[in-house]
Protein backbone atom coordinates (compact mmCIF):
# COMPACT_ATOMS: atom_id res chain seq x y z
CA UNK A 1 0.00 0.00 0.00
CA UNK A 2 2.85 2.40 0.79
CA UNK A 3 4.23 1.23 -2.54
CA UNK A 4 1.07 2.50 -4.25
CA UNK A 5 1.57 5.93 -2.65
CA UNK A 6 5.22 5.92 -3.68
CA UNK A 7 4.42 5.12 -7.31
CA UNK A 8 1.69 7.76 -7.34
CA UNK A 9 4.22 10.31 -6.01
CA UNK A 10 6.65 9.43 -8.79
CA UNK A 11 3.91 9.78 -11.41
CA UNK A 12 2.89 13.12 -9.90
CA UNK A 13 6.47 14.36 -10.02
CA UNK A 14 6.84 13.24 -13.63
CA UNK A 15 3.61 15.04 -14.55
CA UNK A 16 4.95 18.21 -12.92
CA UNK A 17 8.19 17.94 -14.90
CA UNK A 18 6.22 17.48 -18.10
CA UNK A 19 4.10 20.53 -17.28
CA UNK A 20 7.27 22.59 -16.73
CA UNK A 21 8.91 21.34 -19.94
CA UNK A 22 6.24 21.61 -22.62
CA UNK A 23 4.43 24.61 -24.03
CA UNK A 24 4.94 27.26 -26.70
CA UNK A 25 8.68 26.90 -26.09
CA UNK A 26 9.83 23.41 -25.16
CA UNK A 27 12.42 23.23 -22.41
CA UNK A 28 14.46 20.04 -23.02
CA UNK A 29 15.16 17.81 -19.98
CA UNK A 30 18.82 18.87 -19.74
CA UNK A 31 17.89 22.56 -19.76
CA UNK A 32 15.07 21.92 -17.28
CA UNK A 33 17.57 20.30 -14.92
CA UNK A 34 19.82 23.36 -15.22
CA UNK A 35 16.89 25.67 -14.49
CA UNK A 36 15.97 23.61 -11.40
CA UNK A 37 19.55 23.98 -10.21
CA UNK A 38 19.26 27.75 -10.66
CA UNK A 39 21.10 27.95 -13.99
CA UNK A 40 19.90 28.08 -17.56
CA UNK A 41 18.96 30.86 -19.91
CA UNK A 42 16.91 33.82 -18.73
CA UNK A 43 14.04 32.86 -21.05
CA UNK A 44 13.88 29.33 -19.66
CA UNK A 45 14.07 30.60 -16.09
CA UNK A 46 11.18 32.99 -16.62
CA UNK A 47 9.16 30.35 -18.44
CA UNK A 48 9.64 27.70 -15.77
CA UNK A 49 9.63 29.66 -12.53
CA UNK A 50 7.26 32.49 -13.31
CA UNK A 51 4.80 31.10 -15.83
CA UNK A 52 4.65 27.33 -15.77
CA UNK A 53 5.41 26.45 -12.14
CA UNK A 54 2.66 28.62 -10.57
CA UNK A 55 0.19 27.29 -13.10
CA UNK A 56 1.22 23.64 -12.55
CA UNK A 57 1.06 24.06 -8.77
CA UNK A 58 -2.36 25.66 -9.11
CA UNK A 59 -3.54 22.73 -11.22
CA UNK A 60 -2.09 20.19 -8.78
CA UNK A 61 -3.61 21.90 -5.75
CA UNK A 62 -7.02 22.20 -7.43
CA UNK A 63 -7.08 18.54 -8.44
CA UNK A 64 -5.88 17.41 -5.04
CA UNK A 65 -8.40 19.57 -3.18
CA UNK A 66 -11.32 18.40 -5.28
CA UNK A 67 -10.38 14.72 -5.09
CA UNK A 68 -9.99 14.79 -1.29
CA UNK A 69 -13.23 16.73 -0.89
CA UNK A 70 -15.00 14.11 -3.01
CA UNK A 71 -13.50 11.21 -1.06
CA UNK A 72 -14.61 12.82 2.22
CA UNK A 73 -18.14 13.53 1.00
CA UNK A 74 -18.59 9.96 -0.22
CA UNK A 75 -17.69 8.54 3.18
CA UNK A 76 -19.73 11.16 5.00
CA UNK A 77 -22.88 10.53 2.98
CA UNK A 78 -22.13 6.84 2.51
CA UNK A 79 -23.10 7.32 -1.09
CA UNK A 80 -20.72 6.63 -3.94
CA UNK A 81 -22.35 9.41 -5.99
CA UNK A 82 -21.62 12.15 -3.49
CA UNK A 83 -19.35 14.90 -4.72
CA UNK A 84 -19.07 18.55 -3.66
CA UNK A 85 -20.31 19.58 -7.09
CA UNK A 86 -23.46 17.50 -6.84
CA UNK A 87 -24.14 19.19 -3.49
CA UNK A 88 -24.33 22.60 -5.14
CA UNK A 89 -21.11 24.10 -3.79
CA UNK A 90 -19.78 24.94 -7.20
CA UNK A 91 -23.14 26.41 -8.16
CA UNK A 92 -22.94 28.83 -5.26
CA UNK A 93 -19.35 29.67 -6.15
CA UNK A 94 -20.25 30.22 -9.80
CA UNK A 95 -23.07 32.59 -8.95
CA UNK A 96 -20.68 34.51 -6.68
CA UNK A 97 -18.01 34.71 -9.37
CA UNK A 98 -20.40 35.66 -12.17
CA UNK A 99 -21.95 38.41 -10.05
CA UNK A 100 -18.50 39.87 -9.46
CA UNK A 101 -17.70 39.63 -13.18
CA UNK A 102 -21.00 41.29 -14.08
CA UNK A 103 -20.12 44.13 -11.76
CA UNK A 104 -16.79 44.39 -13.55
CA UNK A 105 -14.63 43.55 -10.55
CA UNK A 106 -11.01 42.41 -10.79
CA UNK A 107 -9.67 38.87 -10.52
CA UNK A 108 -9.07 39.05 -6.80
CA UNK A 109 -12.63 40.10 -6.04
CA UNK A 110 -13.99 37.46 -8.41
CA UNK A 111 -12.08 34.85 -6.42
CA UNK A 112 -13.25 36.24 -3.10
CA UNK A 113 -16.81 36.34 -4.31
CA UNK A 114 -16.58 32.74 -5.54
CA UNK A 115 -15.29 31.62 -2.15
CA UNK A 116 -18.10 33.45 -0.37
CA UNK A 117 -20.63 31.88 -2.74
CA UNK A 118 -19.32 28.37 -2.05
CA UNK A 119 -19.43 28.82 1.70
CA UNK A 120 -22.93 30.32 1.47
CA UNK A 121 -24.06 27.30 -0.55
CA UNK A 122 -22.59 25.00 2.11
CA UNK A 123 -24.41 26.72 4.93
CA UNK A 124 -27.64 26.80 2.92
CA UNK A 125 -27.58 23.07 2.15
CA UNK A 126 -26.54 22.13 5.66
CA UNK A 127 -29.11 24.37 7.31
CA UNK A 128 -31.95 23.24 5.07
CA UNK A 129 -31.04 19.54 5.29
CA UNK A 130 -30.93 19.76 9.06
CA UNK A 131 -34.34 21.43 9.15
CA UNK A 132 -36.53 20.38 12.04
CA UNK A 133 -35.99 16.68 11.57
CA UNK A 134 -32.95 14.48 11.76
CA UNK A 135 -29.82 14.87 9.71
CA UNK A 136 -29.65 11.94 7.34
CA UNK A 137 -27.34 11.39 4.37
CA UNK A 138 -30.19 10.95 1.91
CA UNK A 139 -31.78 14.19 3.07
CA UNK A 140 -28.51 16.07 2.76
CA UNK A 141 -27.88 14.63 -0.70
CA UNK A 142 -31.39 15.43 -1.89
CA UNK A 143 -31.23 18.98 -0.52
CA UNK A 144 -27.85 19.44 -2.20
CA UNK A 145 -29.07 18.20 -5.56
CA UNK A 146 -32.16 20.42 -5.48
CA UNK A 147 -30.20 23.49 -4.36
CA UNK A 148 -27.66 22.75 -7.11
CA UNK A 149 -30.35 22.85 -9.77
CA UNK A 150 -31.53 26.13 -8.27
CA UNK A 151 -28.02 27.57 -8.69
CA UNK A 152 -27.98 26.19 -12.23
CA UNK A 153 -31.11 28.14 -13.09
CA UNK A 154 -29.67 31.33 -11.61
CA UNK A 155 -26.47 30.86 -13.65
CA UNK A 156 -28.42 30.38 -16.88
CA UNK A 157 -30.51 33.45 -16.10
CA UNK A 158 -27.40 35.54 -15.47
CA UNK A 159 -25.81 34.38 -18.72
CA UNK A 160 -29.00 35.21 -20.60
CA UNK A 161 -29.08 38.82 -19.42
CA UNK A 162 -25.31 39.47 -19.62
CA UNK A 163 -24.06 41.74 -22.44
CA UNK A 164 -22.38 39.48 -25.00
CA UNK A 165 -18.89 40.99 -24.72
CA UNK A 166 -18.66 39.75 -21.15
CA UNK A 167 -19.77 36.22 -21.97
CA UNK A 168 -16.47 34.53 -23.00
CA UNK A 169 -14.79 35.25 -19.66
CA UNK A 170 -17.79 33.95 -17.78
CA UNK A 171 -18.09 30.80 -19.87
CA UNK A 172 -14.39 30.10 -19.41
CA UNK A 173 -14.78 30.46 -15.67
CA UNK A 174 -17.73 28.06 -15.72
CA UNK A 175 -15.77 25.49 -17.72
CA UNK A 176 -12.88 25.69 -15.33
CA UNK A 177 -9.61 27.42 -16.12
CA UNK A 178 -6.38 27.32 -14.17
CA UNK A 179 -4.94 30.35 -15.97
CA UNK A 180 -6.93 32.53 -13.58
CA UNK A 181 -4.62 31.46 -10.80
CA UNK A 182 -2.12 34.15 -9.88
CA UNK A 183 -0.72 32.83 -6.65
CA UNK A 184 -1.23 29.09 -6.25
CA UNK A 185 0.49 28.87 -2.87
CA UNK A 186 -2.49 29.63 -0.57
CA UNK A 187 -4.45 26.77 -2.17
CA UNK A 188 -1.43 24.49 -1.88
CA UNK A 189 -1.08 25.42 1.77
CA UNK A 190 -4.77 24.69 2.41
CA UNK A 191 -4.25 21.27 0.79
CA UNK A 192 -1.22 20.41 2.92
CA UNK A 193 -2.76 21.63 6.19
CA UNK A 194 -6.06 19.86 5.64
CA UNK A 195 -4.40 16.56 4.81
CA UNK A 196 -2.37 16.88 8.00
CA UNK A 197 -5.62 17.52 9.90
CA UNK A 198 -7.61 14.72 8.32
CA UNK A 199 -5.06 11.90 8.40
CA UNK A 200 -5.46 11.20 12.15
CA UNK A 201 -9.21 10.89 11.50
CA UNK A 202 -8.81 8.50 8.59
CA UNK A 203 -9.35 5.33 10.61
CA UNK A 204 -12.46 6.84 12.21
CA UNK A 205 -13.71 7.54 8.68
CA UNK A 206 -13.22 3.86 7.82
CA UNK A 207 -15.49 3.01 10.72
CA UNK A 208 -17.98 5.75 9.80
CA UNK A 209 -18.27 4.20 6.34
CA UNK A 210 -19.98 1.26 8.09
CA UNK A 211 -22.79 3.52 9.25
CA UNK A 212 -23.14 5.95 12.15
CA UNK A 213 -24.55 3.41 14.64
CA UNK A 214 -21.76 0.93 14.05
CA UNK A 215 -19.23 3.77 14.26
CA UNK A 216 -20.67 4.98 17.57
CA UNK A 217 -20.59 1.43 18.91
CA UNK A 218 -16.89 1.29 18.05
CA UNK A 219 -16.11 4.46 19.94
CA UNK A 220 -16.38 7.17 17.28
CA UNK A 221 -17.95 10.48 18.35
CA UNK A 222 -20.09 10.50 15.23
CA UNK A 223 -21.70 13.94 15.21
CA UNK A 224 -18.52 16.00 15.79
CA UNK A 225 -16.71 13.91 13.18
CA UNK A 226 -19.46 14.43 10.61
CA UNK A 227 -19.50 18.18 11.22
CA UNK A 228 -15.75 18.56 10.87
CA UNK A 229 -15.62 16.44 7.74
CA UNK A 230 -18.46 18.37 6.12
CA UNK A 231 -16.93 21.74 6.94
CA UNK A 232 -13.48 20.67 5.84
CA UNK A 233 -14.75 19.24 2.55
CA UNK A 234 -16.64 22.47 1.91
CA UNK A 235 -13.58 24.56 2.64
CA UNK A 236 -11.49 22.41 0.29
CA UNK A 237 -14.03 22.72 -2.50
CA UNK A 238 -14.45 26.46 -2.00
CA UNK A 239 -10.67 26.88 -2.21
CA UNK A 240 -10.46 24.79 -5.38
CA UNK A 241 -13.31 26.63 -7.04
CA UNK A 242 -11.72 29.93 -6.12
CA UNK A 243 -8.47 28.93 -7.81
CA UNK A 244 -9.78 27.39 -10.98
CA UNK A 245 -13.47 28.01 -11.48
CA UNK A 246 -15.73 25.06 -11.73
CA UNK A 247 -14.03 21.85 -12.72
CA UNK A 248 -16.58 19.10 -12.39
CA UNK A 249 -16.26 15.52 -11.40
CA UNK A 250 -12.60 15.17 -10.35
CA UNK A 251 -14.05 14.64 -6.87
CA UNK A 252 -16.31 11.92 -8.16
CA UNK A 253 -14.04 9.83 -10.35
CA UNK A 254 -10.61 10.10 -8.75
CA UNK A 255 -11.54 8.57 -5.36
CA UNK A 256 -13.56 5.89 -7.13
CA UNK A 257 -10.77 4.95 -9.48
CA UNK A 258 -8.49 4.63 -6.47
CA UNK A 259 -11.03 2.57 -4.51
CA UNK A 260 -11.36 0.18 -7.44
CA UNK A 261 -7.61 -0.40 -7.42
CA UNK A 262 -6.51 0.14 -3.82
CA UNK A 263 -9.52 -0.86 -1.73
CA UNK A 264 -11.33 1.36 0.72
CA UNK A 265 -8.92 2.24 3.51
CA UNK A 266 -9.16 6.03 3.90
CA UNK A 267 -5.62 6.11 5.28
CA UNK A 268 -4.50 5.20 1.76
CA UNK A 269 -7.36 6.71 -0.25
CA UNK A 270 -7.04 10.26 1.13
CA UNK A 271 -3.33 10.82 0.37
CA UNK A 272 -3.68 8.86 -2.87
CA UNK A 273 -6.55 11.17 -3.87
CA UNK A 274 -4.29 14.19 -3.42
CA UNK A 275 -1.63 12.67 -5.65
CA UNK A 276 -3.93 11.23 -8.32
CA UNK A 277 -6.30 14.22 -8.43
CA UNK A 278 -3.34 16.60 -8.64
CA UNK A 279 -1.68 14.56 -11.36
CA UNK A 280 -4.87 14.31 -13.40
CA UNK A 281 -5.34 18.06 -13.37
CA UNK A 282 -1.68 18.84 -14.11
CA UNK A 283 -1.81 16.56 -17.14
CA UNK A 284 -5.18 17.91 -18.25
CA UNK A 285 -3.97 21.50 -17.95
CA UNK A 286 -0.76 20.72 -19.85
CA UNK A 287 -2.83 19.23 -22.65
CA UNK A 288 -5.32 22.10 -22.50
CA UNK A 289 -2.63 24.67 -23.23
CA UNK A 290 -0.67 22.67 -25.83
CA UNK A 291 -3.12 20.71 -27.99
CA UNK A 292 -4.20 23.63 -30.17
CA UNK A 293 -1.59 26.16 -28.97
CA UNK A 294 -1.58 29.14 -28.90
CA UNK A 295 -5.32 28.68 -28.29
CA UNK A 296 -6.21 27.23 -24.89
CA UNK A 297 -8.90 24.70 -24.14
CA UNK A 298 -10.89 24.76 -20.90
CA UNK A 299 -9.21 22.33 -18.52
CA UNK A 300 -12.53 20.96 -17.28
CA UNK A 301 -13.24 19.56 -20.73
CA UNK A 302 -9.88 17.79 -20.90
CA UNK A 303 -10.31 16.42 -17.37
CA UNK A 304 -13.55 14.82 -18.44
CA UNK A 305 -12.13 13.55 -21.73
CA UNK A 306 -9.21 11.94 -19.87
CA UNK A 307 -11.14 10.80 -16.83
CA UNK A 308 -14.25 9.25 -18.34
CA UNK A 309 -12.57 6.50 -20.41
CA UNK A 310 -10.08 5.78 -17.62
CA UNK A 311 -12.90 5.43 -15.09
CA UNK A 312 -15.07 3.27 -17.35
CA UNK A 313 -12.12 0.98 -18.07
CA UNK A 314 -11.38 0.48 -14.36
CA UNK A 315 -15.04 -0.06 -13.55
CA UNK A 316 -15.40 -2.61 -16.34
CA UNK A 317 -12.28 -4.44 -15.21
CA UNK A 318 -13.22 -4.52 -11.51
CA UNK A 319 -14.82 -7.43 -9.74
Amino acid at each position, binding site marked *: MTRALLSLSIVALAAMMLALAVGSVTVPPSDLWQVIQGDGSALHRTLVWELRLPRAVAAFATGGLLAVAGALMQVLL*RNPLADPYILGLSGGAAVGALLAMLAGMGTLLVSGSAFAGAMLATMLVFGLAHGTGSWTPSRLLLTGVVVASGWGAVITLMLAITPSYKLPGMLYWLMGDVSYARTPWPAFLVLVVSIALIMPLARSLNVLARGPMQAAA*LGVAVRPLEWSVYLLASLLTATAVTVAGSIGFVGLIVPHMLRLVLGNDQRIILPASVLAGGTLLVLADTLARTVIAPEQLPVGVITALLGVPMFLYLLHRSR
Partner: protein
Amino acid sequence: MSTLRTRDLIVNIPERRDGFALNMTIESGQIWGVLGPNGAGKTTLLHTLAGLLPARSGCVELNNAPLKELKRRAVAKQLGLVFQERQDTFPATVMETALIGRHPWLSPWESEQGEDQALAEQALHALDVDGLSNRLLNTLSGGERQRVAIATLMTQNPHIWLLDEPTNHLDLHHQVKVMNLLRNQAKSGKAVFMCLHDLNMAARWCSHVLLLYTNGDACWGETESMLVPEALERLYNQRLISLKKDGLSVFVPAP
Protein backbone atom coordinates in the same frame (compact mmCIF):
# COMPACT_ATOMS: atom_id res chain seq x y z
CA MET B 1 -14.94 -7.12 35.13
CA SER B 2 -17.74 -4.85 34.05
CA THR B 3 -21.33 -4.50 35.14
CA LEU B 4 -24.19 -2.98 33.18
CA ARG B 5 -27.08 -1.77 35.30
CA THR B 6 -30.37 -0.13 34.39
CA ARG B 7 -32.04 2.24 36.85
CA ASP B 8 -35.77 2.73 36.29
CA LEU B 9 -35.03 2.53 32.58
CA ILE B 10 -37.90 3.13 30.19
CA VAL B 11 -36.88 2.79 26.56
CA ASN B 12 -38.23 5.26 24.07
CA ILE B 13 -40.60 3.41 21.76
CA PRO B 14 -42.57 5.94 19.71
CA GLU B 15 -46.29 6.08 20.42
CA ARG B 16 -46.19 3.65 23.32
CA ARG B 17 -47.12 4.34 26.92
CA ASP B 18 -44.26 4.21 29.38
CA GLY B 19 -44.52 0.56 30.35
CA PHE B 20 -42.56 -1.17 33.03
CA ALA B 21 -39.35 0.39 34.31
CA LEU B 22 -36.37 -1.94 34.01
CA ASN B 23 -34.04 -2.43 36.97
CA MET B 24 -31.65 -5.13 35.83
CA THR B 25 -28.02 -5.86 36.60
CA ILE B 26 -26.08 -7.67 33.92
CA GLU B 27 -22.93 -9.13 35.37
CA SER B 28 -19.89 -11.02 34.34
CA GLY B 29 -20.55 -14.72 33.73
CA GLN B 30 -24.22 -14.24 32.89
CA ILE B 31 -25.93 -14.90 29.57
CA TRP B 32 -29.15 -12.96 29.10
CA GLY B 33 -31.74 -13.73 26.47
CA VAL B 34 -34.37 -11.13 25.56
CA LEU B 35 -37.57 -12.69 24.25
CA GLY B 36 -40.57 -10.91 22.84
CA PRO B 37 -42.78 -10.58 19.78
CA ASN B 38 -41.92 -8.32 16.83
CA GLY B 39 -42.12 -4.67 17.76
CA ALA B 40 -41.83 -5.27 21.50
CA GLY B 41 -38.70 -3.10 21.56
CA LYS B 42 -35.90 -5.65 21.82
CA THR B 43 -33.59 -3.86 19.39
CA THR B 44 -34.45 -0.44 20.84
CA LEU B 45 -33.58 -1.76 24.30
CA LEU B 46 -30.26 -3.12 23.04
CA HIS B 47 -29.36 0.20 21.41
CA THR B 48 -30.38 2.08 24.56
CA LEU B 49 -28.18 -0.20 26.68
CA ALA B 50 -25.29 0.57 24.34
CA GLY B 51 -25.94 4.30 24.75
CA LEU B 52 -26.77 4.74 21.07
CA LEU B 53 -30.35 5.87 21.75
CA PRO B 54 -31.54 8.16 24.54
CA ALA B 55 -33.83 6.59 27.13
CA ARG B 56 -37.27 8.08 27.75
CA SER B 57 -36.47 8.09 31.44
CA GLY B 58 -34.15 6.41 33.89
CA CYS B 59 -30.57 5.59 33.01
CA VAL B 60 -28.02 2.97 32.11
CA GLU B 61 -24.87 2.65 34.21
CA LEU B 62 -21.64 1.06 33.14
CA ASN B 63 -19.55 0.16 36.18
CA ASN B 64 -21.64 2.55 38.31
CA ALA B 65 -21.06 5.53 35.99
CA PRO B 66 -23.95 6.89 33.90
CA LEU B 67 -23.36 5.75 30.34
CA LYS B 68 -24.22 9.06 28.73
CA GLU B 69 -21.48 10.84 30.67
CA LEU B 70 -18.78 8.52 29.33
CA LYS B 71 -16.83 9.11 26.14
CA ARG B 72 -17.82 6.80 23.28
CA ARG B 73 -14.27 5.49 23.07
CA ALA B 74 -14.20 4.57 26.74
CA VAL B 75 -17.58 2.83 26.37
CA ALA B 76 -16.40 0.91 23.31
CA LYS B 77 -13.55 -0.63 25.28
CA GLN B 78 -16.05 -2.03 27.79
CA LEU B 79 -19.10 -2.75 25.70
CA GLY B 80 -19.69 -3.93 22.14
CA LEU B 81 -22.69 -4.62 19.97
CA VAL B 82 -23.55 -6.86 17.02
CA PHE B 83 -26.27 -5.16 14.98
CA GLN B 84 -29.08 -6.96 13.27
CA GLU B 85 -28.68 -4.88 10.13
CA ARG B 86 -25.41 -3.70 8.69
CA GLN B 87 -24.48 -1.18 6.03
CA ASP B 88 -21.88 -1.96 3.49
CA THR B 89 -21.90 0.84 0.95
CA PHE B 90 -18.23 0.45 0.19
CA PRO B 91 -16.69 -2.96 -0.45
CA ALA B 92 -14.45 -4.22 2.35
CA THR B 93 -12.72 -7.52 2.97
CA VAL B 94 -13.51 -9.86 5.84
CA MET B 95 -10.13 -9.15 7.47
CA GLU B 96 -10.59 -5.37 7.23
CA THR B 97 -14.02 -5.79 8.78
CA ALA B 98 -12.76 -7.82 11.72
CA LEU B 99 -9.93 -5.34 12.27
CA ILE B 100 -12.27 -2.37 12.78
CA GLY B 101 -13.01 -4.04 16.11
CA ARG B 102 -9.60 -2.74 17.23
CA HIS B 103 -10.62 0.87 16.54
CA PRO B 104 -11.39 1.88 20.17
CA TRP B 105 -8.07 0.44 21.32
CA LEU B 106 -5.85 2.40 18.95
CA SER B 107 -4.92 6.07 19.17
CA PRO B 108 -5.49 8.24 16.08
CA TRP B 109 -1.88 7.92 15.01
CA GLU B 110 -1.56 4.17 15.53
CA SER B 111 -2.32 1.55 12.94
CA GLU B 112 -3.13 -2.11 13.54
CA GLN B 113 -0.10 -4.05 14.69
CA GLY B 114 0.73 -7.75 14.65
CA GLU B 115 -1.18 -8.43 17.85
CA ASP B 116 -4.33 -6.77 16.51
CA GLN B 117 -3.97 -8.90 13.40
CA ALA B 118 -3.53 -11.98 15.60
CA LEU B 119 -6.68 -11.19 17.59
CA ALA B 120 -8.66 -10.77 14.37
CA GLU B 121 -7.31 -14.03 12.96
CA GLN B 122 -8.19 -15.85 16.17
CA ALA B 123 -11.74 -14.47 16.07
CA LEU B 124 -12.23 -15.34 12.39
CA HIS B 125 -10.97 -18.84 13.15
CA ALA B 126 -13.35 -19.22 16.09
CA LEU B 127 -16.26 -18.35 13.81
CA ASP B 128 -15.10 -20.62 10.96
CA VAL B 129 -14.59 -17.76 8.53
CA ASP B 130 -10.78 -17.66 8.58
CA GLY B 131 -10.72 -19.13 5.09
CA LEU B 132 -12.56 -16.08 3.80
CA SER B 133 -10.28 -13.31 5.14
CA ASN B 134 -9.52 -11.85 1.71
CA ARG B 135 -13.03 -12.13 0.34
CA LEU B 136 -15.19 -9.02 -0.07
CA LEU B 137 -18.04 -8.84 2.41
CA ASN B 138 -20.69 -8.37 -0.28
CA THR B 139 -19.75 -11.69 -1.90
CA LEU B 140 -20.54 -13.69 1.25
CA SER B 141 -23.75 -15.43 2.22
CA GLY B 142 -25.97 -14.01 4.96
CA GLY B 143 -24.79 -16.57 7.49
CA GLU B 144 -21.13 -15.94 6.71
CA ARG B 145 -21.64 -12.20 7.10
CA GLN B 146 -23.35 -12.79 10.43
CA ARG B 147 -20.34 -14.77 11.63
CA VAL B 148 -17.96 -12.04 10.44
CA ALA B 149 -19.99 -9.52 12.49
CA ILE B 150 -19.63 -11.69 15.60
CA ALA B 151 -15.91 -12.11 14.87
CA THR B 152 -15.63 -8.30 14.73
CA LEU B 153 -17.13 -8.07 18.22
CA MET B 154 -14.76 -10.78 19.40
CA THR B 155 -11.83 -8.78 17.97
CA GLN B 156 -13.12 -5.71 19.80
CA ASN B 157 -13.02 -7.87 22.94
CA PRO B 158 -15.20 -5.83 25.30
CA HIS B 159 -16.39 -7.14 28.69
CA ILE B 160 -20.05 -6.73 27.83
CA TRP B 161 -21.36 -8.30 24.66
CA LEU B 162 -24.69 -7.12 23.29
CA LEU B 163 -25.99 -9.09 20.32
CA ASP B 164 -29.12 -8.59 18.22
CA GLU B 165 -30.28 -12.05 17.14
CA PRO B 166 -26.80 -13.54 16.77
CA THR B 167 -28.08 -16.77 15.25
CA ASN B 168 -29.91 -15.05 12.37
CA HIS B 169 -29.15 -16.66 8.99
CA LEU B 170 -27.00 -19.36 10.61
CA ASP B 171 -27.32 -23.06 9.85
CA LEU B 172 -28.01 -25.41 12.78
CA HIS B 173 -24.38 -26.36 13.28
CA HIS B 174 -23.21 -22.77 13.40
CA GLN B 175 -26.11 -21.75 15.63
CA VAL B 176 -24.86 -24.25 18.19
CA LYS B 177 -21.28 -23.21 17.62
CA VAL B 178 -22.04 -19.52 18.16
CA MET B 179 -24.09 -20.21 21.28
CA ASN B 180 -21.29 -22.37 22.69
CA LEU B 181 -18.80 -19.64 21.91
CA LEU B 182 -20.96 -17.15 23.81
CA ARG B 183 -21.16 -19.58 26.73
CA ASN B 184 -17.37 -19.93 26.79
CA GLN B 185 -16.96 -16.17 26.68
CA ALA B 186 -19.33 -15.85 29.66
CA LYS B 187 -17.34 -18.52 31.51
CA SER B 188 -14.18 -16.51 30.93
CA GLY B 189 -15.80 -13.50 32.60
CA LYS B 190 -17.77 -11.68 29.90
CA ALA B 191 -21.39 -10.66 30.28
CA VAL B 192 -23.61 -11.55 27.32
CA PHE B 193 -26.98 -9.93 26.57
CA MET B 194 -28.80 -10.87 23.38
CA CYS B 195 -32.14 -10.70 21.62
CA LEU B 196 -33.41 -14.10 20.57
CA HIS B 197 -36.38 -15.51 18.74
CA ASP B 198 -35.75 -19.14 19.63
CA LEU B 199 -37.21 -20.23 22.97
CA ASN B 200 -35.24 -23.46 22.89
CA MET B 201 -31.94 -21.64 22.60
CA ALA B 202 -32.86 -19.41 25.50
CA ALA B 203 -33.78 -22.48 27.51
CA ARG B 204 -30.54 -24.23 26.73
CA TRP B 205 -27.94 -21.47 26.85
CA CYS B 206 -29.22 -18.49 28.80
CA SER B 207 -28.76 -18.04 32.54
CA HIS B 208 -31.24 -15.15 32.63
CA VAL B 209 -34.24 -14.21 30.53
CA LEU B 210 -36.05 -10.92 29.99
CA LEU B 211 -39.55 -11.08 28.56
CA LEU B 212 -40.68 -7.94 26.72
CA TYR B 213 -44.38 -7.60 25.93
CA THR B 214 -45.82 -5.49 23.13
CA ASN B 215 -47.71 -3.31 25.60
CA GLY B 216 -44.53 -2.36 27.43
CA ASP B 217 -44.76 -4.87 30.27
CA ALA B 218 -41.57 -6.68 31.16
CA CYS B 219 -40.36 -9.30 33.59
CA TRP B 220 -36.96 -10.85 34.10
CA GLY B 221 -35.15 -13.41 36.19
CA GLU B 222 -33.30 -16.69 36.03
CA THR B 223 -34.18 -18.81 33.03
CA GLU B 224 -35.75 -21.68 35.01
CA SER B 225 -38.30 -19.40 36.64
CA MET B 226 -39.08 -17.37 33.52
CA LEU B 227 -39.69 -19.98 30.85
CA VAL B 228 -43.09 -21.17 32.02
CA PRO B 229 -45.53 -22.08 29.22
CA GLU B 230 -48.33 -19.74 30.45
CA ALA B 231 -46.09 -16.66 30.40
CA LEU B 232 -44.65 -17.56 27.01
CA GLU B 233 -48.09 -18.20 25.50
CA ARG B 234 -49.17 -14.74 26.65
CA LEU B 235 -45.90 -13.26 25.34
CA TYR B 236 -46.28 -14.53 21.78
CA ASN B 237 -50.07 -14.84 21.78
CA GLN B 238 -49.51 -18.41 20.61
CA ARG B 239 -50.40 -21.74 22.20
CA LEU B 240 -47.34 -23.88 22.92
CA ILE B 241 -46.55 -27.50 23.55
CA SER B 242 -43.70 -27.94 26.00
CA LEU B 243 -41.72 -31.14 26.38
CA LYS B 244 -38.94 -32.22 28.70
CA LYS B 245 -36.18 -34.38 27.39
CA ASP B 246 -32.95 -35.20 29.27
CA GLY B 247 -33.60 -32.28 31.60
CA LEU B 248 -33.95 -29.87 28.68
CA SER B 249 -37.13 -27.90 27.99
CA VAL B 250 -38.35 -27.91 24.41
CA PHE B 251 -41.11 -25.63 23.14
CA VAL B 252 -43.00 -26.04 19.91
CA PRO B 253 -45.99 -24.05 18.69
CA ALA B 254 -49.25 -25.92 19.04
CA PRO B 255 -51.12 -26.44 15.78
